[in-house]
């Protein structure tokens, strides 16, 4: 095995092995467990860094393993894969730190961190999947490894959320599987290649290909929470905050959105998908989701539920970008993949901080929390502005590219969708900010767990991650045009997808 084969595997192993070891650790080995977690996260970061440098220099990384005749497990660390891998890896590090702080003193932490690591393993595996088969393998692994996290609290409510989550995602997986096998039957193994490969099947297969497309998109659409397949996401918000961060930013919904990207660009090929007339329906579905998610979010008093509906809306920006025929839209969608991640994770970190520090779970209880927890609230505000798309945040950049992409694709109505969505985003985020900053604080918080000590409004493990990610929201927006920004990487990918 060459280095170029080993490196992708190392990325996967760097969370898999710590995860497996953690399962076996007794509950009380907190220090060792945390060390393992961080070791895994950091070493993964190093490996990803090596990959990034290599891919930017034109190296190709991949690994193949035959599972069945004509069916291979293929890993391929290309630019697109690394976009997602980098996002997950970086956010995983923060989420791990956060989770260590968040779960301090709560039971079953070995289990939690074990599955946590598995979850990220599945995510990077999914990102580096080189064909549909491999993609599916990790897609389902992701489903399974998140379930224990969703139900971690063990309350009946958590159970309900978990079961709904499963019902949706497994059904989606079934659709996806059908589509994949169908395509496999039509043309053998379907590797992800720039420009797609199914066009080779010729005109007599178009009807079948359309159905397969529907199956595939519906399959990944469940995780991407495209309306009407989104019902699980708001239910799953019962999970602890780090898990929500994982669901909404690092792994699950991203996996769905990423799947859409892969399917449209590297299975069908964006040109061919366009010629089959598949992109417009996708764009419409995404548009409906964007608006509907926001409308639902308006009426949620539960903070995390509101954020969850917000995710429903925001993730479809990615699908929308993919469905806009043209490189600019692609850039927007891909950049949003990252941008949405850092913004939403910040929001969930902050929401978790309110819950963990003050016992505040509802929007209506947030009055004056900005005074009590100014740093957390500042992070929250930055991310919220990002969600609305206010400059100079990351959200602004992706929204801008999406709009430009829509205009370039001649789909001017998308601008109206973006407009409406941003308005709704403002309508459900600004009242929160208003309460945080401008309302007087109550006589007592619902359940103040962590007292303030000087400027440290809460535990530093809880405080650092949202601050860093909030800074990232600003930095990725401010410095979007630098060569190391997610946007630049998205441009690199788009150039490769379209110019071939």
């Amino acid at each position, binding site marked *: 095995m060459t280095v170029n084969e080993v490196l992708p595997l190392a990325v996967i192993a760097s969370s898999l092995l710590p995860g497996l070891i953690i*399962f076996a650790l007794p509950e009380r080995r907190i220090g060792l467990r945390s060390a393992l977690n961080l070791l895994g996260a950091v070493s993964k970061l190093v490996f990803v860094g090596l990959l990034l440098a290599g891919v930017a220099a034109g190296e190709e990384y991949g690994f193949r*393993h*035959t*599972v*069945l*005749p004509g*069916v291979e*497990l293929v890993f391929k660390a290309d630019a697109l894969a690394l976009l997602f891998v980098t996002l997950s890896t970086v956010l995983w590090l923060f989420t791990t730190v956060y989770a260590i702080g968040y779960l301090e003193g709560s*039971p*079953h932490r*070995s*289990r939690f961190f074990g599955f946590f690591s598995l979850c990220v393993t599945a995510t990077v595996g999914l990102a580096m999947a080189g064909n549909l*088969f491999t993609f*599916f*393998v*990790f897609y*389902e*692994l992701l*489903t*399974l490894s998140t*379930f*224990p996290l969703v*139900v*971690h609290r*063990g*309350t*009946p409510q*958590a*159970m309900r959320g*978990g*079961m709904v989550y*499963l019902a949706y995602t*497994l*059904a989606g*997986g*079934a659709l996806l*599987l*059908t589509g994949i*096998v*169908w395509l*496999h*039957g039509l043309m053998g193994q379907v590797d992800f290649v720039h420009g797609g490969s199914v066009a080779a099947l010729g005109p007599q297969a178009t009807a079948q290909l359309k159905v397969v497309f529907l199956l595939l998109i519906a399959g990944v659409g469940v995780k991407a929470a495209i309306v009407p397949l989104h019902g699980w996401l708001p239910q799953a918000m019962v999970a602890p905050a780090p898990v929500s961060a994982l669901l909404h930013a690092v792994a699950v919904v991203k996996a769905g959105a990423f799947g859409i990207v892969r399917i449209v660009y590297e299975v069908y090929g964006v040109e061919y998908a366009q010629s089959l007339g598949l992109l417009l329906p996708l764009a419409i579905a995404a548009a409906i989701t964007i608006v509907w998610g926001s409308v639902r979010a308006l009426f949620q008093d539960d903070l995390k539920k509101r954020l969850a509906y917000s995710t429903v809306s925001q993730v479809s920006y990615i699908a929308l970008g993919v469905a806009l025929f043209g490189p600019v839209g692609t850039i927007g969608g891909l950049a949003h993949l990252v941008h949405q991640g850092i913004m939403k994770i910040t929001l969930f970190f902050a929401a978790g901080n309110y819950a963990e520090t003050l016992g505040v779970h509802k929007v209506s209880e947030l009055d004056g929390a900005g005074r009590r927890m100014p740093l957390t609230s500042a992070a929250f505000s930055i991310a919220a502005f990002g969600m609305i798309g206010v400059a100079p945040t990351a959200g602004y950049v992706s929204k801008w590219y999406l709009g430009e992409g829509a205009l370039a694709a001649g789909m001017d109505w998308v601008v109206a969708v973006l407009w409406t969505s941003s308005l709704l985003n403002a309508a459900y985020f600004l009242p929160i900010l208003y309460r945080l900053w401008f309302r007087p604080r109550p006589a007592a918080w619902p359940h103040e767990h962590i007292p303030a000590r000087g400027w440290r409004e809460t535990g530093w493990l809880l405080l650092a991650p949202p601050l860093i990610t909030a800074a990232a929201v600003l930095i990725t927006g401010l410095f979007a045009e630098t060569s190391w920004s997610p946007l630049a990487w998205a441009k690199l990918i788009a150039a490769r997808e379209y110019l071939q």
Partner: protein
Amino acid sequence: MTEAWPDPAAWLILLPLAWATLAFLAGPGRGGRLAIPALAAQCALALWLAVSLAESGARLHPVGGWGAPLGIDLLADGLSAVMLLLTQAVALALAVYAQAYFADAHHRHEATWFWPLTGFLIAAMNALFLSADLFNLYVTLELLGLAAVGLVAVGGGTAQIAAALRYLLVSLIASGAYLMGVALIYGTYGTAAIASLAPLIDPTPPLATWLAAGLMVVGLMAKTALFPFHFWLPPAHGGAPAPVSALLSALVVKASFYLVLRLALGPFAPLAEMAAWLAGGLGAAAILWGSWQALRTRHIKRLVAWSTVAQLGYLFLIFPLLAADGLAMQAGVMQAVAHGLAKAALFAAAGVLMRATGRDTLDGLAGVAGRVPLTLFAFGLAGVTIMGLPPSAGFLAKWLLIDAALASGQWGWVVVIIAGGLLAAGYIFRVLRRAFLVAPEDSRFHPVPRRLEWTAFALAVASVLLGLRGAELVALLG
């Protein structure tokens, strides 16, 4: 056949017969120490056989040196090698499990003749997988059936005896039908050797051949507990001690399926197409009905047993698809292997869960996730295989099956396969979700030997990881 070291295939039968007998000789409750190394040796033998088959192709072993049709041939090919490997591996793991399981004072009385019975059971299966003579197969079937009945009754409780009795009666009627089929075949063609029969049966055989095939296949279906002959299975498998249930559910039912497959691929291939739809339909019904029942039952082991009923249905879905190409056969074997490993793990895990909680109902499971996490993990992993989720072998089976169905344009099966997978998820997670619930205050947990947990876990891991080595398995099938 004059190698320096004789055929491993024959040893695979002789060895378990020998240790079974010796275990009997050693006395009640004894034999575990004998069985485990012997099974390990069998594993090595099976592996050796598989490797040598992969190099040289199928091998005949003419017992007595006569050769068919006068004598009896043992035939070792890829299919039998896979089944042999599965059997030895699962049996070894379960033996390790059983030894720890029966060491407990509460369960010692169940173990009286467990070891010799198990030895005969394994010998019977190995003989069945290797035999190439219809009448000899009848004898192995009976041997297998009686050993299985004996194991069901091993607990000695009323429910177990009733279950054993019902199992025995079904099994006897089924073997009777099979024997009648053999009689007709012998009468028609003058031989019972599969190799001799295969060229004689053409697509338009005499009526007697049809009847014979029908009787034999129906008999075997009843032994496999294919819907609607499944009624004996849940009480038999659900009521026995955990290691026994595991053996029965994981391996024994596969034996008669193996035989159906052999017949359909071999001598009855010209006739198979006619009955294939019926088999597939019954398989589909089994999947749906078995899953539905598993979703309703309140007992852990019943649930797992009903899951067996459902999973066996998949095995019969392959028959309408056999014509497509090798895919369906591979799918069937893959499913048999995957289910074998996974079901053994499930029963083993269920045994641990029941022992830990002291209860046999799903409601009693609240909170076990924190007490026996490894076992629950094993249950979950095995569940992954049962649900057909990647990267398990069950997934590969499902993949091949859907591929075959789509390739032959038979749409309906895909729906059944997918629905079955989702239903499986339904019942597997019925267990898991309860395990994750917060334990009620008054619940008490009993310590469980670690070895039980690890064995269940190893089996479950094997069932999942096998999915990464499907290519080897398929290559072995040829």
